[in-house]
């Protein structure tokens, strides 16, 4: 399975793909957020991910290419922290920064390494947001995705297959936020009225995991 390792180029493709998906789904994210939040998740995420793509471009054009997985993920993390603006800034920032720390100074991650990094990111989001499963947050899509990725790899699946399962789990987790009562963030101010709406944060996380399934695990 040597061709399934996640190298810097693959991570770069993943982030750019995520940025494209966010841009395509900007209105959807904003619409979801307008139902239960402050109607800025689409524009905030799009601003953050555009800035991130620009930062990646700049690094390579200035002859300072990002040569390790850790460096790339940290750059992504620091850029989203400074450009998203809402609560997604520190939360996505923590996700990528912790992934970067977990990845370390290596050129490529193996399957288990990528899974461990994503789980470290999840741990960061949990610690930062203090959310529990079922609180109608990003974690409701990210936690099942991490668990599915880990379990599939442990069961002998290749990264490509495992990420496909993870993406399905993220989608299922995202859909499961609809009947939930929000307990964190601005949506929680709505109380019972938050029930019946899909969580925007879980939705963007599902995009992130689907982007990983589409770009990692097999050579283009």
């Amino acid at each position: 399975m040597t061709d399934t390792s996640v190298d810097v180029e693959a991570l770069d493709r993943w982030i750019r793909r995520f940025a494209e998906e966010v841009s395509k789904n900007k209105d959807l994210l904003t619409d979801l957020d307008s139902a239960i939040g402050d109607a800025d998740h689409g524009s905030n995420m799009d601003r953050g991910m555009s800035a991130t793509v620009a930062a990646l471009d700049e690094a390579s054009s200035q002859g300072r290419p990002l040569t390790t997985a850790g460096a790339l993920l940290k750059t992504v993390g620091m850029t989203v922290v400074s450009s998203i603006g809402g609560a997604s800034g520190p939360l996505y920032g923590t996700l990528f920064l912790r992934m970067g720390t977990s990845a370390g100074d290596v050129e490529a991650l193996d399957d288990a390494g990528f899974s461990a990094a994503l789980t470290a990111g999840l741990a960061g989001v949990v610690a930062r947001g203090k959310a529990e499963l079922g609180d109608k947050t990003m974690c409701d899509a990210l936690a099942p995705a991490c668990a599915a990725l880990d379990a599939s790899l442990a069961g002998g699946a290749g990264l490509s297959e495992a990420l496909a399962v993870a993406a399905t789990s993220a989608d299922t987790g995202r859909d499961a936020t609809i009947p939930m009562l929000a307990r964190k963030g601005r949506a929680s101010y709505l109380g019972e009225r938050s029930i019946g709406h899909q969580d925007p944060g879980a939705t963007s996380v599902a995009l992130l995991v689907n982007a990983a399934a589409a770009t990692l695990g097999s050579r283009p």
Partner: protein
Amino acid sequence: MSEARPVSAAPLVGIVLVSHSAALAKAALALAGEMLHSKPVRIELAAGLDERTFGTDAVQILEAIQAADDGAGVVVLMDLGSAVLSAELALELLDDEAARERVLLCPAPMVEGLVVAAVAAAGGATRNEVCAGAVGALEGKRSQLGVAEIEPLRESGQLVAAEPGPSRESGQSVAAEPGPSLEGTFVVSNEHGLHARPAAKLVQEVRSLDAVVMLRNLSTGAGPVPASSLSRVATLGALRDHEIQVSVTGSHAREALDHVLALAGRAFDEDADSPGTPARGGRMAAGGHEPEADDSDRTEADDSEGTTPPDGPDWGTKPTSARPAAPGIGIGPVWKAGPLAALAVPDATTENAAADWRRVRRAIADVRREIRRSQALAVRDVGEGDAAIFDAHLLLLDDGDVLDDVHSRIDSGQAAAPAWATTIARVEGDFSALSDPYLRARAGDVRAVGDQVLRVLLGIPDVTAAVSGVFVASDLTPAQVAGFDAEKVKAVILAHGTPTSHGAILARGKGIPVVVGAGTSVLDIPDGTLVAVDGASGEVAVAPDDELLERFRARGRELALARITALARSSTPAVTKDGTHVVVGANLGSQEDATLAAKSGADLAGLVRTEFLFLGRSQAPDVDEQEAVYLALAETLGGRRLTLRTLDVGGDKPLDYLPMPLEANPFLGLRGLRLSLANPGLLADQLLACVRTAHATPVSLMFPMVSTVAELAEARRLLADAVVLEGRGTPPGLLVGIMVEVPATALKTEAFARHVDFFSIGTNDLTQYTLAAERGNDAVAEVADPYDPGVLRLIQTVCDGAGTALVAVCGELAADTRATSLLVGLGVRELSMTSSAIPEVKEAIRTTDLSEARHLAAQAVTAVGPEAVKALLTGHS
């Protein structure tokens, strides 16, 4: 605002303002600037993504913190939501550990906080003082609006030391309210000052007065504080011989002032045996009563710990140790059931003995209803075994000896409440004097039920449902736990108690951390004091400093992550190592249960106790109501299969609208399906509701307490009638099954198998019927062990004879991970349980190997007894 300062001056604390809006931050800074008169305080802004874009940026905050830190540290003030998250991330990004230690994220409101913080910082205050002052800024507004007592401040070691400055002004503003205003002073005569008990007495009295009472400690300058708030009174630090000023406002100011001064003159009735209070036997406290010995313990604790724990020597920096009783981390303000909830029983005589006796009977009836409700909740949370404690409580209410004693006391002149209190105190004393430790512990049950009735008689509402924060009490009763809102009660600290007490077990079922045996000194921690509890290690930190608090929080986050990961895995199916799928379902008794089941990863609802629809009402729910409730459950479960068990009651759970004969032994009487067949109208309605539901969502229908094939045939005939009546034919996904609780039924599995799609074994009842021993009866409870090889043999018989029908277990054994591989080995393919156990049981299935499990099962059914079976299981796990 970073003007140069003379180099010689000691560095001042810097301030960082984090806001979503650059304009808002600039305006707040200008406002604060007016107070500073160009004093050199560093205030850095980290606000907005740019001039126009709302948002916060952790990197910008990090740079602001570094710019503001002159060596004396930084206080960070934030507006809402992401401002807090970004500030926390900024701290994480700060590499210099020493610099990080110097940063304080301050929970004060941003605008008010900035004004006070800037002034304090300019005056050379430390960062703790700056932060405390900023938090105290809210106090002025609160007092002005007259809502001082609603929200106790977070009283960590630091914040208690808040600058009294702003609150002094607030005292004046209260005094300026319309209505007469009077002042008076008294000198504290209590040996240990105005500590918890006298303070509680004062607060209690003040709350009953129609006036606003403020106190100021003239000897120290502390205050003014509202006398209606125990946590605030504690901050006066009023010691013996301190002079306290009382300011009273309101239409009854004169009476109120006289009342408070008279109370002070009596040393706040601290001497419990002073004239006017009834004898000890007639005095009861809610969460447990302090015998004389405990009072002396507490005095000793006062001596060693000081009277105001937040200022005590070690409280804030190192945790104390208690016995762990239920795991988890809980952090919150103290909420005491102690002195405030003491039930003072007036020593009244009766004017109308017949009327008083009727009041007692009515109160008992009320409490009986309350206990049944608590029991239903407890069954849901922890299963029927541990919920059986409530049966003992119900029995006490029907105890002829108790009732006769109360009756004769009333006849001889005592009023209802003192008569009841005296009798209960006597019974409690009888139990306490027994040599058997288990029976001695039942004294607590007597007390618990006695208090419940006494509350009704005295018209004192039970505040249990309102408890929020960390509940501190002498002991914990099952009824109290049943009333707890698990979202609001962060933890429980008990001065006495054992980890195996029913209260602790019930709390564990609700996921509330508990420590016991913490010692009587915990009863003196003022209400509202912040405490942190680790229910796994037994550690308790009172008014922890930030470092200690963070240690508890970090542990809490670790646990949360572990739980999240286990939960995340629980939504995937449970398959044994060799690929056998075992369905894991939830037992439901309410709509909330369904929510919990969906969160916990239940594959289906393996048992819906439909009784919850029928109990506690004067008439049966009609078909439409039942259908609506079943459909709502299915929707909450995302369309997963519902196993609807028809009404399962008997003589022990009477219904107003269902006549039931008085039976000598209701457990061997007309119950379950037997009772339903005797009342076919009720059953016909329920079956029609089930058929309708089954046309919309997958339904399994299950009949309880079946003992003959003829009963099942009759029930199926009524079901066929319901299908015809409904008119759309047999619903496509409808499955029909029976509960196996009667040994004869297990032995006749083959005969039943032709008529059912599934069997569901109720191990609790099967165990008690097989071994002829009731688990609620302490004398034989040990005999009623579901691991008894006789019970296992019956389970095996069902699995072997079921043919193509599925065999499920929905009793408590299903939730016991020790039994998982054994049950799977016997042939069980569905386990249904209380939702909280699902993630662990799924994990247990994943580690099971079917051929090993079969081997284990073969050994278990031939073992000599339950202990041998358990030894076998632990040897294999």
